[in-house]
């Protein structure tokens, strides 16, 4: 049956989760039942009920609305960081792969240098050095996520360079950029797309981690990470405070991972070991 073909089930489940959560984030102003910043001191830490679907937080703000608005930020950071990582990774990989020689060696050693720093540690250190502005968070997360993609692209290019259609194009007098644009890039799309899909949840998780450690975007802007941080002081009395932001974070990451895994299986690619 079509549904049980390799990867199909994962792909569609993942896509449905992403689309639902994406829509929830996009239409947050219409879906939210309360203003995300409106406090109500008399009704703090109220358990989930009809009025407040996910309960209220320490200032009596409606958690359902805040979780929806938090999704906007997480998704935006995830996608923008992914674009940045893929952009840098593609350029570095293409340059290293197609030029070869000393250029290749230099680019790959630079990649190694970034790769040997554990990502979470590097991101935390850089954020601690600079300011936790939203654009800085994107820049740091995106700017540290590219080495894996660079390696992948370089590997693809090295393989494709040996292909006969590339040699024939070169013999016909095609320039380097024409070969990259019309022969290398279109053939490297599948693995890069999988890597890009898997880049989004990594960035979302990283952003939430920053928020949880208290160095991400600062409250009162609601993000899933900083909501979890606030909730930690009230775990004994208010399980819903920590449960719902985390649940949405988990579902989002899960949706993207499933999609990536589904695509990978469909196209018959093998999982790559990330070194570092």
């Amino acid at each position, binding site marked *: 049956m079509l549904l049980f073909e390799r990867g199909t089930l*994962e792909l569609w489940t993942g896509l449905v989760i992403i689309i639902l959560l994406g829509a929830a984030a996009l239409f947050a102003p219409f879906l939210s039942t309360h203003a995300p910043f409106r406090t109500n001191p008399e009704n703090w830490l109220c358990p989930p009920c009809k009025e407040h679907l996910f309960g209220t937080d320490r200032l009596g703000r409606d958690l359902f609305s805040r979780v929806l608005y938090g999704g906007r930020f997480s998704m935006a950071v995830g996608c923008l960081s992914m674009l940045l990582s893929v952009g840098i990774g593609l350029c570095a990989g293409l340059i290293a792969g197609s030029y070869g020689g000393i250029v290749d060696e230099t680019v790959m*050693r*630079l990649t*190694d*240098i970034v*790769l*040997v*720093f*554990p990502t*979470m*540690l*590097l991101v*935390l*250190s*850089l954020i*601690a*050095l*600079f300011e936790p502005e939203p654009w800085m968070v994107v820049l740091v997360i995106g700017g540290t996520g590219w080495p894996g993609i660079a390696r992948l692209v370089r590997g693809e290019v090295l393989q494709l360079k040996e292909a006969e259609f590339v040699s024939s194009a070169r013999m016909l007098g095609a320039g380097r950029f024409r070969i990259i644009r019309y022969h290398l890039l279109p053939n490297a799309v599948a693995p890069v797309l999988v890597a890009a899909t898997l880049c989004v*949840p990594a960035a979302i*998780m990283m952003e*939430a*981690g920053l928020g*949880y*450690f*208290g*160095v991400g975007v600062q409250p009162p802007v609601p993000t899933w990470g900083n909501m*979890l941080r606030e*909730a*930690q002081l009230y*775990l*004994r009395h208010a*399980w819903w405070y*920590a*449960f719902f932001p*985390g649940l949405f*974070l*988990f579902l989002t*990451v*899960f949706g993207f*991972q*499933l999609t990536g*895994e589904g695509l990978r299986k469909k196209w018959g690619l*093998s*999982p790559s*070991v990330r*070194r*570092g």
Partner: protein
Amino acid sequence: MYILRRFLQTSFVLFGVSVVTFLMLHVAPGHPLQSNPEMRLDPTAVERWLQLRQLDRPLFGRYISWLSRLFRGDFGVSLLYNRPVTELMAERLPSTLLLTVTAFVISLLLAVIIGTYAARYQDSACDRVVNIMSIAGNSLPGFWLGILLVIVFSYKNQLFPAAGMRTPGDGSPADIARHMFLPLSVMVFANFSYYVRYVRGAVLAVLKQDFVRAAKSRGLNDRQLLFRHVLPNAAIPVVTIAALSLPMLFTGAMTAEYVFAWPGIGRFIVSSLLARDYPVVMTVNLYTACLVALANLLADLLYLLIDPRLRVKR
């Protein structure tokens, strides 16, 4: 030749790491003097202070002297504790090792057993469950899982303590084990879901090879086939993963240690980062990056040791 090349590459990477770390330390906003009002008042004191710390010298000279101090084992002094960073880290290493090594051994064993089983019965219900579980496990934020465990096991039922390593006045192994249970569960779950995919993939790849079919047709039973032919050949990817996670044993798990206030290196790293204790932050970055670079080298050398075929190929 190959080994020499890898050594050269590793030393280049280590050099790069030291440059990056040094630059990060020096672009940190907030001159040390700005936060100390007494020194700002007296220009001669400022000059003396700069001279004492060699901050008046050009960047390159400072890098050289910083590097030579590193080689002499002087990693700087924590701004927060006013003690050598190495001393602070050495104190926290044992509790980190206790946690990480236990988690590593348990999760790797579980992953090898369950991963092999899932691959042997590919596409069975069990295999599908393992597959989905591993994706879900990779998507589960460690801090959220930790928080949920605390709510369920420490607050709703008082089964396990929520934080720390020992009850004051009690440091018996049983007490430590009780404290270790929740952070250990978070780490085992995360590591297991990560390893199991690779074990399953590696075993699956071997099972498809001709020599396995040949062995099967010679009448070997499942057990003989598994231990003599499949596992030894599936070892390489698994050893890679294991070698690459060795650095984690020494740096600790930042999230798990932070959530459960485990007095190890991971928590020390996070709290120093939050306090902007730059000397500690940079030492930690340097230390981890070096460990990772060496683990990469180790993984490559292990290949040659395990698989004699590769020695010829390269």
